[in-house]
């Protein structure tokens, strides 16, 4: 048997008479998927984009209430706004660069691989653009508040507060909780790189290499 026999057998196959799916069912599926996806994207964009804006608003309000002594909060606001702007820029970039499945296979694979590399780099450098600025903003906020306390609270009251175990306990709890939260976010993103992005990248790169190997 040779290729011609395979072609003959291939052409002899009869296809089911009925259409593969009814449009109503397909539209229902699409609508339900679209609604779920839209809700997820809206929630994600709202959280990512507005969280930074919200925290910046809180810092700005505190700055306004405290007065000029709280000027370092401007740095914290800038850092938080920077994170929000970065998220929005990334969202726009992803939206504009996306290629649909009607693109030739090689171009689609290359675009998908480039995007995955970009996502991988973003998640591996989480400290640079997300955790770093957020930790910095939190640190600036705490130090500014301590500075204000030193400046504005009577020295006897302050000395009494420093001696109180509850104050130390609260500070320690805040420190541990913040560290745990940062570690959790970092770990979650590392896991996404290892379990989702890297295996997918290997798969797509192999596919692309197979397609190009004879070139």
């Amino acid at each position, binding site marked *: 048997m040779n290729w011609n026999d395979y072609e003959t057998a291939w*052409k002899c*196959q009869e296809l*089911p008479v009925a259409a593969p799916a009814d449009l109503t069912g397909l539209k229902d599926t699409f609508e339900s998927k679209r609604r779920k996806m839209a809700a997820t994207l809206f929630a994600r964009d709202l959280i990512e984009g507005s969280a930074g804006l919200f925290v910046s608003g809180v810092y700005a309000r505190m700055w306004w209430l405290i007065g000029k002594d709280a000027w370092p909060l401007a740095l914290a606001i800038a850092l938080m706004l920077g994170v929000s702007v970065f998220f929005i820029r990334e969202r726009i970039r992803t939206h504009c660069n996306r290629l649909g*499945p*009607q693109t*030739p*296979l*090689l171009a689609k694979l290359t675009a*998908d691989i480039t995007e995955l590399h970009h996502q991988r780099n973003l998640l591996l450098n989480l400290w640079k653009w997300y955790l770093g600025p957020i930790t910095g903003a939190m640190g600036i906020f705490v130090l500014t508040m301590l500075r204000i306390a030193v400046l504005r609270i009577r020295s006897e009251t302050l000395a009494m507060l420093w001696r109180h175990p509850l104050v130390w306990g609260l500070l320690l709890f805040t420190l541990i909780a913040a560290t745990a939260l940062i570690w959790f976010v970092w770990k979650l993103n590392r896991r996404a790189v290892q379990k989702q992005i890297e295996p997918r990248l290997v798969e797509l790169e192999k596919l692309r290499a197979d*397609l190009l190997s004879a070139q």
Partner: protein
Amino acid sequence: MGGKSCKDFPLPATNSLMSPSANHEPLFKTWLEEHRGIIIKVTRSFAPAPSDAADLQQELLLQIWLSLPSYARQAKPSTWIYRVCLNTALTWRRGTFRRERRIEPAADLAHIASDVASPADRAGARELLEKLYAAIRALPGSERALVLLSLDGLAYREIADITGLTENHVGVALTRARKHLAELMKGVTNELE
């Protein structure tokens, strides 16, 4: 294929960010009728197990439907559908919620064209087709796509349009893919002969 061509249907606009609308329905229905063979063959060639076929087929249809607003008539409908189907199938991953309905492996191959004369010949042809599909599924993804396009009778030029490779490269890659397929089919054809 005497149905209406895509030019008989008004397309609202060509924008990849648009959602398909009621205006796309007639075109979609016609394409399903005219090109369902592509969808079925891609499903049979790429579904890792028969039980995944329904999921993959639904995904292919969904992607065609979703991509319809971006169809700009720069490519033939069949080329465009091959692109959407192969891109989707090559990167498709089995859904988390797999359908419970099981499909018998050979159930959808039960029909072999009537020009194959006797029942024995028909059974032989069906068996060959089953083995051919099994061999195609055993090929790496890229070779699977090339073999499928070649078996469907597409010229190198059309395959190059779909894959984005050069015609020369298609020729080389296809020769290699056919060789792999022949190796996979070797034992099978001995049995059948």
